[in-house]
């Protein structure tokens, strides 16, 4: 879309209308609670972002082997990876999180070895469960995408590399993986936003993210609309930032010819 087609007269009117609505809301609604919670909200935005980025990085690192073994791996491994993807994609992520936190979490205290180990201080916190659940979920969905991407790399390129005597691992590192990642990059922005939309679920297992902090605000101030609108606005802005960053990234990277 070029800039000229964007600034059409009806758009200007719609924008003026939208600005008017936002201004009326800003001036006429009750935002007096906002300064008191500013620091808490900023902390919460930081927690959500940290969970989002870390779970995507870890999930993607898991998704690469999950996708790869489904294309070339030995049968049992391929079946295992396929089963994992089906399991993750076939059940709600809220349930997965609860299985980890309430289910596994309730079994851990019965294992004495675990209580003495260095892991124990982490296992009694909530965020590791949130991180693991978000990571596994992303790995499940992205593993399926990576499977398609590995499969979609033209055979000729791999055969050419084989023909000049490249080691299989070098082929993977220098040709197969970069080509597959190049194929999934355009969809990654959308996956990022889907993952952002999954993060508020961590509030159900007592991680204080953006969603949780606004739950507290609503309880403490008894205000119905304003915190909910602010909450939606913050997620909207985060999604906007992600979309903008990926737009920049796509322009920077060479497109596949």
């Amino acid at each position, binding site marked *: 879309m070029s800039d000229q087609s964007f600034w*059409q007269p*009806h*758009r200007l009117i*719609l924008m003026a209308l939208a600005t008017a609505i936002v201004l009326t809301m800003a001036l006429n609604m009750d935002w007096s609670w906002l300064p008191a919670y500013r620091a808490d909200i900023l902390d919460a935005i930081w927690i959500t972002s940290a969970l989002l980025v870390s779970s995507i990085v870890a999930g993607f690192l898991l998704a690469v082997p999950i996708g790869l073994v489904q294309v070339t791996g030995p049968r049992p491994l391929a079946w295992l990876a396929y089963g994992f993807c*089906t*399991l993750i*994609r*076939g*059940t*709600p*992520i*809220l*349930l*997965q999180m*609860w*299985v980890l936190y*309430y*289910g*596994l*979490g*309730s*079994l851990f205290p019965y294992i004495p070895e675990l209580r003495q180990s260095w892991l124990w201080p982490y296992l009694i916190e909530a965020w590791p469960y949130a991180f693991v659940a978000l990571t596994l979920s992303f790995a499940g969905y992205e593993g399926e995408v990576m499977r398609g991407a590995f499969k979609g790399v033209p055979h000729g390129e791999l055969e050419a590399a084989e023909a000049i005597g490249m080691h299989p691992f070098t082929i993977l590192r220098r040709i197969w993986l970069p080509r597959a990642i190049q194929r999934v990059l355009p969809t990654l922005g959308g996956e990022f*936003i889907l993952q*952002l*939309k*999954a*993060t*508020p*679920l961590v*509030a*159900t297992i007592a991680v204080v993210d953006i*969603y949780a902090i606004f739950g507290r605000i*609503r309880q403490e101030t008894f205000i*119905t*609309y304003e915190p*909910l609108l602010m*909450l*939606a606005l913050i*997620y*909207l802005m985060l*999604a*906007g930032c992600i979309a903008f960053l990926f737009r920049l990234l796509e322009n920077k990277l060479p497109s596949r010819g």
Partner: protein
Amino acid sequence: MATNYREMSAAELLALEPPGWGGALLDGLAISLQVAVLGYLIGILIGLGGAVLKRSGGPITRDLMGLYTTLVRAIPELVLILLAYFAMPELINQMLSGFGFERIEINGFVAGVVVIGFVQGAYATEVLRGAMGAVPVGHIEAAQSFGMHPLRIFARITVPEMLPSALPGLSNLWLIATKDTALLAVVGFTELTLAARQAAGATKQYFLFLLAAGALYLIITLLSGWIFRLIENRVNRGAHHV
């Protein structure tokens, strides 16, 4: 008097009759499916309307539809559920009492169907818009030249011809609808996930009941995948496979 769940086996705990909790889980499953089916159907209706508007509406309707799909795809479903559950009833009742009507009660079921339909509608708009673009213009023009009514063209030509390209997206949306019903657990609506957690809380068998609920979701997913494949095969019969 309290039942001693500690001495019951997994089979006894999952039994359909109380003191087993299997019946409660199946009730939850039935409610989840009802919300999912209603929300999905509403979503497809919104999607059909939205796709037509986006393709042939004026610039303003197109922009408004674009705003709708963008907003829904950027705001978490959980936040939309809060809005539908806490803000929407307030707003509706304020309007109703403003016009002198009686207040109405909006329960979790209605709010759930509304949210899932609203979210599905945004995604369905995109799926169906793309599929409608795949219908050859010549077919529509041929029907028009016969003097067919636009609604009849839509029902007889557009819909059947777009189904093959729309079905993969639609089956994906159905799976999302069934999984999104779990989010209603957060506002205390007893569907499958919350039923499982209530059973788990009462018996202290968290792992067993949450896994049982997961198995039920998985059965629904696999079964739906199979049914959608059958439908796809039927819709695609006679088509050339590329």
